[in-house]
């Protein structure tokens, strides 16, 4: 093998990325590219897993068997998404357990949306429609990410996500065509989830320091603000069909831009929640820690059993 200097390696790497050639686990990559991906993919994995908590809480209280089966399938999908992502982060040489410990210690973040509680049944429909809807907007863009294992995982996840959004919307259609109390419950959920859903796309481009590098490496294809705008444009007509009002007095179609205008986002709230002060941050992390600690004996027993059987075989 010829030894190449770092500059030359970096140049070749960028040429590959520019030519849309995917980067695979054993290929050379800049340290920062690897670090950025480990951070992004593990936080994405944590979001899938933590995201099971607010919805899982409603499985036993779903209003009928159909909705219960659907919610169970959706939450199980989210567990699957977490697992695809943890295995793709492992291809970068990261230690799966260490990434989870970073979540538990507060070092690693996850999507701030899951720090809001799901207090009514309408919240479950709204989460499917808005939260999975926003996630889809992000994830569709990630299907073309330059890192092969992440991109392939995203393709699989996106196929599964579209049912998540549709089941949520369908559930809201039922509530919105129901009694005035049901409709009011749907509107209340909308009022609470709209802004946190818009925050899911992350800080404004101007305040997003890593964005430019991620775009150059084709980890990211669209800026946070572009994705947020696409989400608003797609969602407003869907809200109209439900007969729900979007809680933003400044929301209106801008003929010139060909997009909806909307109010500035309350970034103080966003940073408060990201930094641990949202309504459910502590509860969510405690639940994850408890799951790991209380499940540890099962993992140890399964491993001990496997080792014992392997020994018998060789004996």
């Amino acid at each position: 093998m010829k030894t190449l200097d770092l500059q030359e390696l970096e140049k070749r790497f960028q040429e590959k990325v520019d030519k849309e050639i995917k980067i695979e686990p054993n290929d050379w990559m800049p340290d920062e590219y690897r670090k950025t991906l480990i951070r992004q993919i593990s936080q994405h994995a944590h979001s899938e897993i933590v995201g099971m908590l607010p919805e899982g809480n409603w499985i036993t209280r779903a209003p009928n068997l159909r909705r219960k089966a659907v919610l169970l399938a959706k939450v199980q999908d989210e567990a699957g998404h977490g697992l695809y992502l943890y295995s793709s982060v492992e291809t970068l040489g990261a230690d799966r357990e260490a990434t989870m410990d970073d979540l538990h210690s507060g070092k690693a973040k996850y999507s701030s949306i899951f720090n809001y509680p799901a207090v009514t049944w309408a919240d479950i429909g709204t989460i499917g429609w808005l939260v999975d809807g926003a996630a889809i907007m992000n994830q569709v863009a990630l299907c073309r990410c330059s890192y092969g294992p992440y991109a392939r995982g995203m393709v699989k996840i996106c196929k599964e996500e579209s049912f998540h959004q549709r089941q949520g919307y369908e559930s809201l259609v039922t509530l919105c065509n129901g009694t005035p109390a049901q409709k009011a419950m749907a509107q209340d959920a909308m009022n609470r989830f709209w802004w946190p859903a818009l925050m899911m796309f992350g800080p404004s481009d101007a305040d997003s320091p890593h964005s430019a590098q991620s775009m150059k490496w084709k980890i990211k294809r669209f800026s946070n603000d572009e994705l947020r705008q696409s989400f608003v444009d797609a969602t407003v007509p869907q809200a109209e069909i439900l007969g729900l009002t979007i809680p933003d007095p400044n929301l209106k179609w801008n003929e010139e831009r060909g997009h909806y205008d909307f109010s500035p986002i309350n970034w103080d709230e966003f940073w408060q929640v990201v930094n641990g002060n949202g309504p459910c941050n502590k509860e969510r992390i405690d639940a994850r820690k408890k799951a790991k600690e209380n499940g540890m004996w099962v993992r140890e027993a399964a491993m001990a059993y496997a080792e014992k059987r392997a020994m018998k075989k060789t004996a």
Partner: protein
Amino acid sequence: MSNREWPLWEVFIRSKQGLNHKHVGSLRAPDATLALENARDVYTRRSEGISIWVVESNYVHASDPSDADSLFEPSDTKVYRHPTFYDVPDGVKHM
């Protein structure tokens, strides 16, 4: 008590009769039996498969990407291995 992490397994799925098993991803499991069960839950929730192989990742040997040139370039220059390299007179059929 074992503090070791569950080993990593690569998962291959045959999507339908007549097709190859294809790599779909990986997972952690203590042994082959549970690896198969986990693979069923993680990778075939929507009838993606009719058969699963799991292989402990330790046993997979891969070619080194930096050897790609020396390994694969020689075949790029052998165009005569492809049928389109050969001219046959117009009118020759079934060839």
